[in-house]
């Protein structure tokens, strides 16, 4: 259920974009949405569209499903490292939920899946051949 501060994130998901925030004073990108930079305390922050590239940071494979997930169990609850730096929780799609298939640091890319009223960012395996992510967004074009 969005709040005014998080609405742009969910609007982005509905438009097929993963939107993050970054500080225009210190350039640090961050997630989850909030109106202050956690690195320097500045309130001069802006939204930008992330690359959608990520890697698998850690996960569990849950055998006791939450309500609404009965048909999915066992399913992976993962934390991914976004190319831009922040991490977020997600589910993985397009890959079996087994330890052999889910290898830490494997490359992933964002996809959006409709769940109820919301479009939810999920991640799916990406080709390792995809180009390396650029330098952290904002580092070059936004100075102090």
């Amino acid at each position, binding site marked *: *259920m*969005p*709040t005014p501060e*998080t609405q742009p994130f969910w609007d982005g998901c509905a438009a097929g974009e993963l939107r993050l925030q970054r500080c225009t004073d210190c350039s640090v990108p961050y*997630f*989850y949405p*909030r109106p202050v930079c956690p690195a320097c305390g500045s309130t001069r922050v802006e939204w930008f569209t992330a690359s959608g590239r990520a890697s698998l*940071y*850690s*996960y*569990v*494979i*849950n*055998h*006791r*499903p*939450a309500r*609404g*997930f009965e048909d*999915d169990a*066992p*399913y992976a*609850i*993962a*934390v991914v490292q976004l190319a831009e730096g922040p*991490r*977020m*929780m*997600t*589910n993985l799609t397009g890959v079996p939920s087994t*330890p052999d298939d889910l290898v*830490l*640091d494997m490359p992933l890319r964002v996809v959006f899946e409709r*769940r109820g009223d*919301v479009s*939810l960012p999920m991640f799916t395996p990406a080709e390792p051949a995809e180009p390396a992510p650029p330098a952290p967004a904002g580092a070059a074009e936004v100075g102090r």
Partner: protein
Amino acid sequence: MSQGQGQPGVIIAGAAETTRLGKLPGVSTLGLHIEGALNAVADAGLTLRDIDGIATVSAPGPVQVAHALGITPGWIDGTGVGGTSFLLHVRHAVAAIRAGYARTVLITHGESGRSRVDAARMAPAPSSPAGQFEAPYGTLGPTTTFTIPVLRYMKEYGLTHEQLAYVAVAQRRWAAKNPRAAFRDPITVDDVLASRMVAYPFHLLECCMVTDGGGALVVTAADRAGEFRRPAVHVLGTGESSETPMISQMADFTQSQAFRLAGQAAFAEAGIAAADVGHLMVYDAFAHVPIYGLEALGFVAKGEGGPFIAEGHTEPGGRLPMNTNGGGLSYTHTGMYGMFAIQEGVRQLRGEAAAQVAGPEISVIVGNGGMFATSGVLVLGRQPR
């Protein structure tokens, strides 16, 4: 020089758990608070009329608990930051007693974690950050969130599934000596790895139980030591910190910043080092948490926690007795386990534990709240500083 030098001493003068632990469908959450409070006040040899400060978590909260017991407090602490809250209450009570805001503080815990009689709701609010950015991915409480960091730890430091399983084996060896422990039959690594998978890589026996129970503490000034029924336990140092309300935002999945900062503060105040500690309690909601605790407080180097436990150093006969009641894995775990970790530290220093360690002078309690969200650390001693 330790930070606490020159400050008036504070002691735990009374400590007790509810008479029974386990499955208690006939007692409400408030009823468990009351039972723990009455037992602790009696343990100190005091009456409820002697209490002028109250601390507990919401719900039911300090106003409800104080009113139910007929206490009119001049000092109130409702800090509710998960299972470590009671360690923070002790820390805050130390400050209040030194400041003269209270003379005799009662800290209570009661939780109908299993029977859920008037139990607090646990799911995050839908509009909270956790409600928006974690719950939609099928989280179902601590088994699906507190557990997520460990695969990263295993990859970075080589912790094996067998070493993780051994944490449960070691603690069961303590529980076997404790008639009040819920699970006392010996187990092997194979038993742990053969138990039902809950959330890979965690099997059932690597997850804490969920029980009903409670306990309470009476905290007062050290210059009153000797007025009470039981030997005083001195609060030598305390620390607290918080890191993240969401496991996904934990800065480094291989270490707890909150454990480390709270531990550093507590050790500095007490003027001790890890080598001075004769007894240790580390909150063990899951098998990996004691490993993180051992490393965060400097008992072992980074990455050595798993091997240290698997080599037997924390079990009966080992050089660093840890979780000697059996822990949340084998003794009891109501949901907010911190009170029980403190109770075992007090029992060990008084010399009245079921699995008594030979004469520990210093016991350290490492508390966790939420999913590596918060921490409190207590350094308790048999003697004043």
